[in-house]
């Protein structure tokens, strides 16, 4: 009986998930253009990565994006959650307003908006022009294009903020009351009670956002018109993998790239979990 309920999931697991994972591993050792049968190459695809300049660029772009945008996004989310938690009237309204960008941020429509806002004659430069500063074309400048996407990711801080808010509500007020009796000020309470008790939630958000940010695709694709430009400055790892696979139909190499991404994400998640032992406090 149980297997009847599980049947759809089981078929999906085998055919849509596990099968393709293994197939992708196999393909990563081959050359395959969809037209001819795969040709075994051994480790050639992986060796090729060492000399692939554009891949190195893609790694640099993606790592910069993850390491800059995730901490900024989480810091903002935490700050606002803390700010909102203290019995602010209208909490639900503020929460909704700050959360809205998280829902919309991954869409093509918002990426289109971003392309205009940060364009040479875009909104940002209009506003800068109003105070007498002549801005550059942010999206079209290799030094700034990635920053616009970092701003976009930070803009979607609402989702982790909602999680932080839920976490803050779990902290018993008696801890704060006890600390007040002992004469603790706001600053001490924040660093000695709120932050330590919130570390499991911070950790949860950190893991989630890192995994998600490594896979950013849509925004970079739309803002750069699919090229990863200007001068490969927004060539995200997933975008490069897409170009190799579905642009030039190097399915073998694309599979190898995808597997390396999987390994990178797995390593980061594992390191996160190991490091967590040093700074995450779970209730006793």
């Amino acid at each position, binding site marked *: *009986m149980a297997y009847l*309920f*599980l049947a*759809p*999931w089981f*078929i*999906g*697991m085998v*055919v*849509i*998930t*596990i099968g*393709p*994972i293994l*197939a*992708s591993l196999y393909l990563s050792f081959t050359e395959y253009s969809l037209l001819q049968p795969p040709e075994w190459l051994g480790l050639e695809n992986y060796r090729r990565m060492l000399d692939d300049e554009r891949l190195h660029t893609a790694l640099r772009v993606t790592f910069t994006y993850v390491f800059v945008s995730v901490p900024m996004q989480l810091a903002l989310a935490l700050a606002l959650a803390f*700010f909102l938690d203290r*019995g*602010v*009237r*209208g909490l639900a309204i*503020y*929460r909704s307003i*700050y959360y809205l*960008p*998280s*829902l*919309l941020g991954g*869409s*093509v*429509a918002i990426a*289109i*908006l971003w392309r*205009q*806002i940060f364009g040479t*004659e875009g*909104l940002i430069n*209009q*506003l800068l022009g109003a105070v007498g500063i002549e801005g550059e074309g942010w999206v079209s400048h290799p030094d700034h294009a990635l920053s616009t996407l970092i701003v976009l990711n930070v803009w*979607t801080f609402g*989702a982790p903020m*909602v999680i932080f808010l*839920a976490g803050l509500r779990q902290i018993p*007020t008696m801890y704060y009351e006890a600390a007040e009796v002992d004469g603790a000020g706001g600053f001490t309470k924040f660093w000695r009670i709120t932050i330590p008790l919130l570390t499991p939630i911070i950790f949860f958000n950190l893991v989630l956002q890192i*995994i998600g940010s*490594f896979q950013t*695709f*849509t925004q970079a*694709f*739309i803002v750069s*018109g*699919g090229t990863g430009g200007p001068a490969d400055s927004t060539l995200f790892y*997933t975008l490069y*993998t897409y170009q190799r*696979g*579905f642009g030039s139909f190097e*399915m073998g190499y694309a599979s190898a790239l*995808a597997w390396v991404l999987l390994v990178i*994400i797995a390593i980061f*998640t594992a390191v996160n979990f190991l490091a967590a032992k040093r700074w995450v406090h779970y209730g006793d």
Partner: protein
Amino acid sequence: MATDLGPSIGGAGIDGGSDDALRRRRRDSRKRRLLKHVALIVFGFAMLYPLLWMVSSSFKPSDVIFRDPSLIPSEFDFSNYTEGWTALARPFHHYLINSAIIVGFSVVGNLLSCAMAAYAFARLQFRGRRLFFAAMLGTIMLPIHVVIVPQYILFSELDWINTYYPLIVPKFLATDAFFIFLMVQFIRGLPRELDDAARIDGCGHLRIFWRIIMPLCLPALATTAIFTFISVWNDFYSQLIFVTDPDLYTVPVALRTFVDSQGESAWGPLFAMSLVALGPIFGFFLAGQRYLMRGIATTGIK
């Protein structure tokens, strides 16, 4: 709002001494509260400014968009909408319908298949349960990029490229493990006595699932439906890959073609159609906030 610290601030003043000091402190805290609201509103306004400006600009002629950062258009001109609606090979509602078809089937598929799997994991005893459950959790964070190439090969062998099957069929096979997890957590919270009572009355698992568990799971089902709606409506990557026939384009893929073909000259119509694309998400956001907030708080999905 359960933790209103207001009274404890006032309370601290009791042993503070004179009435005067108490009053001053009250006034200070009111001022501080007001300041806080001002800060929160200014910040929220700054965050939403690009969106509001987009709405306003969709009523402005394209050449004005380049020099008018204000939020109030000088006149309401709907020509961007009419122009954008017909700018592509098909009128825009064609793409809206395409997206709606995929979203509709995806929601039904996810609800059915994920609930069934969740019921099995939460309530039934079977061999390999722990292993399967761990495997299911393991796939939650799996990047789609790792499976997309073999999936593409599989679907092209089945002659499914340029159909909606690659986007819909996986939803009927419970591939969004997030929602299984969400529902497992929910079902585990339901009292088992209900199942037992029904079993004594002669109900089989199918009836218990359909008549007892599913109705009680309504909040979790609503969360699943809303998140499936939003993620499929916004999805670009798999639609870009599996659908290349312009007649089958979905809203995100159509928008992408629009921005690439019109380029920078047609911001007005582009903004207008982008807003049409965001409309349903915004509607669900307004209607389903309670479920959205609960969903994020329990699973961390966006």
